[in-house]
């Protein structure tokens, strides 16, 4: 099998399965498969599962670039778009669950929440950012936007920061889990800053070297 085939036949289907497993777990329990249940507050369980799956996938998406370099596996790039799209998919489900199950279409309350509750405001902004990235994730959009595509897709950084912040901001007292997310995100972003600095110093160092322009 070529690399191309391995990705198409094995790795991408695995990403599909892995990304949809939490949803299958919710549906299974929702329909009482094997005596399972969503507990006393199914709406909350669905909302939380979708939100956390979105964050997990967002962090995985951000882990692709460091992993490619550290593991010297550049072909991992082929999985990044799929992971990013699934992150957006679960963020959308999270938003829909909030409007349909939690607010039960109480539109005035939705407006009030977005305007008055900062953790909901930033959650909304994060989903909007991801929507823009998802909408421009095709090869065609990439070609059409050219250099601007890269700049637009840096939007994943604020989206991830806002997403983790959104999670931590609604916790009553137990910040341990949001802090784990924040720590992983800090590592992933810190690695990039560190690489960038290293690249800048090496280029500025070489530019002063004689004989190079």
């Amino acid at each position, binding site marked *: 099998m070529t690399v191309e085939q391995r990705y198409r036949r094995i790795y991408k289907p695995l990403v599909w399965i892995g990304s949809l497993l939490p949803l299958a777990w919710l549906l299974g329990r929702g329909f009482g498969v094997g005596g399972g249940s969503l*507990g*006393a507050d199914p709406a909350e369980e669905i909302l939380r599962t979708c939100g956390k799956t979105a964050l997990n996938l967002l962090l995985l998406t951000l882990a692709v670039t460091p992993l490619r370099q550290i593991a010297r596996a550049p072909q991992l790039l082929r999985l990044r778009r799929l992971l990013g799209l699934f992150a957006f998919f679960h963020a959308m489900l999270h938003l829909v669950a909030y409007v349909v199950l939690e607010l039960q279409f109480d539109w005035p*309350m939705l407006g009030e929440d977005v305007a008055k509750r900062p953790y909901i405001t930033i959650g909304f902004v994060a989903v909007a950012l991801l929507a823009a990235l998802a909408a421009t994730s095709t090869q065609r959009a990439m070609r059409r936007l050219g250099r601007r595509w890269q700049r637009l897709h840096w939007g994943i950084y604020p989206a991830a920061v806002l997403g983790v912040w959104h999670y931590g901001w609604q916790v009553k007292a*137990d910040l341990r889990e949001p802090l784990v997310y924040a720590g992983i995100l800090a590592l992933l972003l810190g690695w990039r800053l560190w690489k960038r600095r290293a690249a800048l110093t090496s280029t500025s160092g070489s530019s002063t070297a004689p004989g190079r322009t």
Partner: protein
Amino acid sequence: MEGPMTRRIQPRIAPSEITPEAVFRDRRRVLAALGAAALGGAALPGLGQSPTPAGGAASRLAPPKYARSERWSTKETPTSLEDVTSYNNFYEFGTDKADPKANAQKFRARPWSVEVAGEAEVRGRFTLEDILRPHALEERVYRFRCVEAWSMVVPWLGFPLGDLLQRFKPTSRARYVEFTTLLDPGQMPGQRSPVLDWPYAEGLRMDEAMHPLALMVVGVYGQWLPNQNGAPLRLVVPWKYGFKSIKSIVRIRFTEREPRTSWNLSAPYEYGFYANVNPAVDHPRWSQAKERRLGTGFFATRTDTLPFNGYAADVAGLYRGMDLRRYF
């Protein structure tokens, strides 16, 4: 059963001395319904019961005897026993709603004792049996509103907190009463993390504590309290957010000054001492105008939250002249 502990508590005072007359009459009616035999002592828990061995689970005790109090019960449909006992906040056993049930099963709720301290004539350590002996248990179906904007309807078993507090003869200096939960990280794994400043503490103003709605709870759904719901002794203050209803109480202290309470210490701008259910005063991070009543429909129906959780007619008078935005 007469021991030094028993003698430290005065005989039960007449309920008429401490309860408003209408309430008193209602309770008499309940008691009358029990019949003479019940009044003779058979209905009083803790009597004629051999001491429970250490680690004795609630299930090994004789089931509690009680009478339903219609006066203090809502007609709303109670939330299922399964939901009441598998979904709640009890951070001593973990911060997830499923943690209390998962982690409290081996908790030893008996033998149990309660220390009474502070501004009262009768102080000391009392066994659970001493605490319960004089009180007839009532079943009261109360609304329960969590500060997180979900709610339940729960048939508790208990007796008026005021009846218990009167037995300790609080002095004129007692303006507040403080309650403390057991501190035992060995049994309560949640206490191994500094999520809150353990042990959990709560408090009430004396007039709130003496209000007939304030209930000392020992059971739910006709059974002794399961560990995850605050066995063996917890408070239920139905017009306040759930976190005021402190669980697994080991200490009652009468104070002159407002006691410090756990959630207020944790986030003073978000959780006040009073914590009365109030749809007009939002939590800084979320609205309190509505609540989701768990167990009604698959996704819990949204309903309007009522002032004082629907008990305004009974308790609003306690706060006359107070700015409820300031004293949230």
